[in-house]
């Protein structure tokens, strides 16, 4: 069910204009330390490439 929600959420956010690479979903088991590191590296690389997120951001004066 969570996966179904994420599948639709990713598509929906991309549709309204939030880059698909900002919504990332995967499974990591507690025993998969290496995989966790890989995922985080990948995610940071993707987000770095996109630059800072400035959509739906609240300006608190």
């Amino acid at each position: 069910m969570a996966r179904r929600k994420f599948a639709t959420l990713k598509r929906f956010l991309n549709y309204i204009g939030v880059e698909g690479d900002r919504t990332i979903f995967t499974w990591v088991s507690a025993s998969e330390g290496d995989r966790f590191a890989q995922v985080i590296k990948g995610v940071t690389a993707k987000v770095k490439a996109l630059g800072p997120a400035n959509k739906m951001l609240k300006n608190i004066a």
Partner: protein
Amino acid sequence: MENIESKLREEAKRLLLEKRADIIVGYEKGTLPLTATPCFVSTEAEADKLVYNELCTQNLAKYVHDLITAHKNSQKRVKPEDRKKKVIGVVARGCTTRSLIIHLQERQYERDEVYIIGVPCEGYVDKKNLAKALDSAEIIDGNLDGLQLKIKTAAGDKTIAVSDVIAPNCAVCRFNNPIISDIMVGTPAPVKNPATEYDKISEFEKKDIAERWDYFTKEMEKCIRCNACRQACPSCYCPTCFAEQSQPQWVGIGEDKSDTQVFQCMRLFHMVGRCVDCGSCISVCPMGVDLRNYLKKIDKDCWELFGTRAGSSMEEMPPLGKFSEQDKEDFIYNP
């Protein structure tokens, strides 16, 4: 439609007389010309005010839920053995029955608490389309003659065919006849043109991401957060809406545009597998926000990914309540 109306009144009287329903939710003539408004009928004499025509817009499932919830709350302090069930009769067309199915699947009430009087639907007149057709001239008087609207406006008389000012969601309706009903009044209406229902969405999907974001911000800037869309939506029935929750406060109450965007985004996303495209939210929106562009996208995704349409069958589980081994996995990130 005249025929349906008289049958409907007869049926409503019979239900009230036989005590098979305590209240009947239907439509009555509105206070403004060419409008119909939801009404509650609890005595036989009142049943004569029921109308059913192409001017009935709102999805009545919302009222069924409200009435049943209010009744249940009033029964809370009554001893369990003395609690009474209240049966709500509802005049329901295709989209209303879909909403009722969603309520039933989400265990909001039991099937025997509603009595569904099914009516066929030819689509309803969209206020905004009508205003456009009349160049926003003020409607002084008007009546519905078959499928023709005879309108007296401040700028002269005009006759408009209902099919020319039909709501966009009705024009591509797939379920214009009730899916479930206890009794059917009138003969089923011919199906509309559902083959083109996702055309606009596919077109919008092809646009550049920056363009899509611009459109979203532009549309959401119109929103004044009156919450009319939420009030009209039959699928929005949470006792405490996230928009009003204060611990945690999901959305700020100020007029910051990010708050509006987040509110709309969250409300829209709560409609996955639950939006029946009845158009109630759009018809009540005072600012004309293009909500349908997003709601239909959710519907399209649901159909493409999970092969289900909201409230289309009583037996089928809601899409977010189950999973399948055939679900696509391309969205899962694998480094």
